[in-house]
């Protein structure tokens, strides 16, 4: 890997939720921060999202959901990533996610959960510092 590798991010909207203001703002911010951003659009099934990750050879997968279906959809996506043997990817979640759900989501491998009010800079910094660490196989 060369040092100047551009970070590739897949931004996805799993489930039926149509709130895409946040995800689009983040897409623009990551692009302006020099990353390559692929936005899946709305209503993606876990299968479609994992396929996008494979095809785009993504370094980061960011999942945005505001409908409350994260408890079902996030674990399903993590399961599929595992099945496909994709382990060297940073997975982040965003949206309306209650405190009590966070420990479980972290446990299944979602490294960061970002909620309304998070600064864009916080997310960008998080990506840089967490990608810099060598992945634990």
């Amino acid at each position, binding site marked *: 890997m060369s040092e100047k590798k551009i970070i590739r991010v897949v931004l996805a909207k799993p489930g*039926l939720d149509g709130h895409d203001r946040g995800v689009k*703002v983040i897409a623009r911010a990551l692009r302006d921060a020099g990353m390559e951003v692929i*936005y899946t659009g709305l209503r993606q099934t876990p299968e479609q999202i994992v396929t996008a990750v494979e095809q785009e050879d993504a370094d980061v997968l960011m999942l945005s959901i505001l409908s409350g279906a994260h408890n*079902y959809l996030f674990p399903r996506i993590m399961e599929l990533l595992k099945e496909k043997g994709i382990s060297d990817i940073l997975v982040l979640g965003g949206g309306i996610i209650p405190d009590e759900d966070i420990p479980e989501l972290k446990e299944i491998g979602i490294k960061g959960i970002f909620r309304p009010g998070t600064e864009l800079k916080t997310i960008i910094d998080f990506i840089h510092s967490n990608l810099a660490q060598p992945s634990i196989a």
Partner: protein
Amino acid sequence: MDDKKNIEKISEAFKAWEEKTNKVVSKNPERKAQFETLSEIPINRLYTPLDIQHLDYLEKIGFPGLYPFVRGVQNTMHRGRFWTMRQYAGFGSAEDTNKRFRYLLEQGQTGLSVAFDLPTQIGYDSDHSLALGEVGKVGVAIDSVRDMAVLFDQIPLDQVSTSMTTNSPAAVITAMYLALAEKSGISFDKLRGTIQNDVLKEYIARGTYIFPPKPAMRITTNIIDYCAKNMPQWNSISISGYHMREAGCTAVQEVAFTLADGISYVESVINAGLKIDEFAPRLSFFFSAHQDFLEEIAKYRAARRLWARIMKERFKAQDPRSWMLRYHVQTAGCSLTAQQPLLNILRTGFEALSAVLGGCQSLHTNSYDEALALPTEQAVQIALRTQQIIAHEAGVTETADPLAGSYYIEYLTDKIEADAEEYIRKIWDMGGMIPAIEAGYIQQEIAHSAYEYQKKVESKERIVVGVNKFQIKEPPPTGLLKVDMSVGDRQTEKLKILRAERNQQAVASCLDKIKKGAEKENENLMPLILDAVKAEATLGEICDAMREVFGEYIGGTSY
């Protein structure tokens, strides 16, 4: 509005005042070099008669209840009666939501507003694989007319006005409501309420589309046509700017895009053979009440004047009711913060006050806990009480349009109207709203505004109290509403029973008729859907029948 000689005097005095003030400012600068509204309209230090001297009172402002309705659509406005206090509510099963509805009515709410869950809004039954994890989450799950009966249990449909937020499957939900009324012996002309039925903004901002724009517009038109002929007290559409505003657009864009959608619907219904005055009086609108208090008041006034002009001048409507922009307001969900959530009570209060001063017909106030979860009973009660305080205590309802004549408000009203009109012209230069949506233009404009706003928050050019200033360390919130995870299983069980008990052949025949009807462009689908609903076909089955003929819309991936 002042005579010429007086204007000259004011102009001279203003120049003298400005010179003096500039000297003061050069020593003691103002807080910022430039001031602007939330929508980036520049704001002067002061507004005077000079700023509105071009406005002819009788032509541009006039009287409440009279064209161009800047001062409101009714002659007596809130002196006659208050706006309808209508809290958007729905979660879990029909049983859960019915309980919340009856609580709200007990608490003095004057109209109902149904929030459906996402599977219901996108035309999937609760047992569909794509519904997994979503059933009952952001609204109530409705699969068949049986659920609808539970939803309105002990609520007489001829005595309430009901608003239903359903768009792509609006025909099915309307049909279920009608079937329920028929069963209770209530004739359709007694029903009062609103169906959102605004598909265009789904492609732009809200995301619960099913079909491509062309067949979707046809269904919308079928509903407007059916309502015009059968449901004289029913608002057949609620043309919505709210969701585009939530997605990040400005006040000017909200007015422009909403009225542009309105023009598209009117054109479509006229093309279907109706005369403008046969349906235009039942068109209604839905706007946001955002945080810039004075700008919002001006926005409602501007929207009323612009729509009145469009209806009279562009569409040659004759019936004054066709000229009136009647609207519901919801306070801005996107202004709510997860940090220090009790502050949201104040934000909502100011926003609601702007809606009332702007002359709304109906209002929803958000609950303080909605940046965290669906609201609890206690949070909803405070939200409703906020409206009741404005109505009964604040004194703002005792005269119509009390801020008229304010130099700033009149200037801003005129400015928003002019800027929105310019936008609409630009959209029609691109061929109209549907081509502009298909090209992604509207979506891009909104995403741009949203990003610009966020950058201002990050740079602290915009202060959000509790978020980028005045933060505190606070414990995680407690006592939030949790939707019972078992609702999906319960709905699936109900569907099994329904499918076992109903007449399968009758259902199949009704669905077949819908498919055949969908293939014929001139057929109104409403009566066919009503028959299917009465035969207990499910929402998913009816939408699937239409999917087979119309196909499905695939959303964009640009940002």
